[in-house]
């Protein structure tokens, strides 16, 4: 078998192609493989001269940095490609873990020029270190069963009033453990018109006040989004925070009844989300070459269409001009059945905002933990 370091030295120029087929070890900390594994497998199959074997492993984002760091300290990096969300990306940038890909190899990644507006904004967050591979506008949205909530709240104030009238009925998961949770957290400053939506500590006074008020009528903050989905399904929660992907995919999977509805609060901004590909420092040049070729392929519209998946990252593609009918049949069928035509209009009508950077986000989480989630015991 191949040694993990085949493909040459970590230093030196990156050739156009590896000398011989390499083994790629891919670590996914964002659940991105669900969208892209098909693209990768296809590329590997087609280019067996470049990629001999791909191994996939999964981890949670917080553990990513420690692991890469330990490997780099020991000079033995055996993770070649990391697929990560904003959190892992930023943490790695701050710790200097990633190989700078841009602008050096921008010409090899021509697909990056085709990014949609939102994706292009998200790519700025990655600086020179990562490549956006999938993108979606995310949320914040609210989700409910029409049978139980005949007239859903239309504004943030109405939501609060609803919560007041039905204690325990509104639920969102602990933001640091949940995508919809953090999207709601980051979306509120826009909804409420806070002074600086990018500064959770000093610019979010209305948001924190709103959350504290809401907190009075929230009985629990589950530790995962699936928990809130389950509660929605079994009726113990009536309105939960959601995103486009979390709306469609769980209904496909049967975790949430098909008839669940989503609603948007008046005047909301999308807080977008994306997944990035990064290469840890210390990956040999040959492997880097193969990865760059792989990424270039992944950014072609044909491959991007696979990102529609079963609505998990709806819509999913990061580049412009990828329509649903380019997607695999399975995807098309799922989205036709469970998707919502109104999303196109919502996406078109509401402004897109990039999420908080990692530092600010951690600070927001910490503040939420201390003042909202932890408030119940403090009293």
């Amino acid at each position, binding site marked *: 078998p191949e040694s993990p370091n085949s493909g040459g030295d970590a230093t030196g120029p990156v050739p156009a192609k590896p000398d011989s087929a390499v083994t790629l070890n891919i670590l996914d900390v964002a659940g991105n493989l669900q969208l892209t594994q098909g693209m990768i497998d296809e590329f590997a199959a087609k280019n067996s001269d470049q990629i001999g074997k791909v191994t996939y492993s999964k981890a949670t984002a917080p553990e990513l940095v420690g692991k890469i760091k330990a490997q780099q300290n020991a000079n033995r990096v055996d993770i070649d490609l990391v697929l990560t969300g904003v959190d892992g990306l930023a943490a790695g940038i701050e710790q200097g873990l990633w190989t700078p890909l841009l602008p050096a190899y921008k010409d090899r990644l021509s697909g990056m020029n085709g990014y949609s507006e939102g994706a292009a904004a998200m790519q700025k967050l990655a600086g020179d270190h990562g490549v956006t591979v999938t993108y979606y506008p995310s949320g914040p949205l609210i989700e409910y069963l029409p049978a139980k909530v005949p007239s859903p709240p239309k504004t943030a104030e109405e939501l609060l009033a609803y919560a007041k009238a039905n204690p325990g009925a509104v639920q969102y998961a602990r933001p640091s453990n949940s995508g919809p949770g953090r999207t709601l957290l980051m979306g509120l400053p826009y909804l409420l018109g806070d002074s600086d939506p990018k500064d959770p500590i000093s610019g979010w006074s209305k948001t924190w006040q709103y959350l504290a008020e809401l907190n009075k009528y929230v009985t*629990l903050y589950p530790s995962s989004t699936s928990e809130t989905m389950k509660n929605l399904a079994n009726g113990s929660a009536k309105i939960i925070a959601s995103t486009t992907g979390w709306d469609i995919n769980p209904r496909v999977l049967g975790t949430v009844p098909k008839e669940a509805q989503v609603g948007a609060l008046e005047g909301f901004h999308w807080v977008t989300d994306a997944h990035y590909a990064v290469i840890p420092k210390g990956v040999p040049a040959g492997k880097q070459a193969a990865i760059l070729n792989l990424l270039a392929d992944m950014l072609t519209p044909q491959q991007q269409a696979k990102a529609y998946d079963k609505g998990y990252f709806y819509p999913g593609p990061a580049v412009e001009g990828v329509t649903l009918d380019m997607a695999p049949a399975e995807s098309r069928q799922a989205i036709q059945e469970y998707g919502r035509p109104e999303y196109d209009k919502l996406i078109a009508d509401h402004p897109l905002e990039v999420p908080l950077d990692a530092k600010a986000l951690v600070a927001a989480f910490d503040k939420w933990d201390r003042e909202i989630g*932890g408030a119940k015991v403090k009293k």
Partner: protein
Amino acid sequence: MTRAALRHRLAERGIDRQLLLLAPALACVLALFVYPFAYGIGLSFQPAEGGVLGAYRTFFTDAYQRDTIATTLGLALPAAILNVAASVPIAYRMRGRFRGKRLLTTVLVVPITLGTVLTAEGLLNYLGPTGWFNRTLISVGLTDAPVRLTNNYWGVFFSLVITGFPFAFLLILSYLSGIDPTLDRAAATLGAPWWQRFRRITLPLLAPGLATTFCLTFVLAFSVFPSAVLVGDPAGETRVISIAAYHAAYEVYDYPLGSAIAVIMGLVELAVVAVVLGLRSLLYTGSTGGKG
């Protein structure tokens, strides 16, 4: 002659080649535990700012962090006490021989295999607002609204009981079987009713075993992490110290603080263990008359 004499003298003190059998184990523990652990302690004294004790100061001056010690103790101590206390009467009932004992012990041991995730999932399903437990309570009419038993203190507490109880039970049953049953009979012939026999004979003899068991279950409970997140309320009621350590090390990437919290964790744990073992050394610690 002198070499033989030296060998004899060393042997008299208990030193000879047989001690080499200890070497592999000792080497493993030194290389794989002591060295990394010392490294971790060293790391905790090198925070980015605040001097040598900076990381510790950060921890202790922040009430939100400091309180995790109390939160953890508030979970681990009652759970360990309950596990041990509940095991004693059950083990006491089961120490004789009766049909089905083996089956019953085996079943009691099953929860050891469950693993955190299944326990957490099961608790969420079973004790959740529309889980079987609440459904039963409501249909029996004991309560109108579902009782909230998950995503709070109780969820974590139950998961600690489910994983800790079988372990405590096994150990205690084993210790209890080591006590010579004729002692109990001797006390009976001296006119002691069963609870006097239990209180004055069995319990004191069991005490050292109880202390050991308590320490082991306490340690298990004190380092609770996944279930504190999964079935607990990780921002509030069940923000245990390992969450703080995890947060520091993996979310803020403040390794010195993470190490410092880990060290504090170890120290608190050792303090509790030391208190318990100290109390134990006040008690009788000799043979319990078990028949070999």
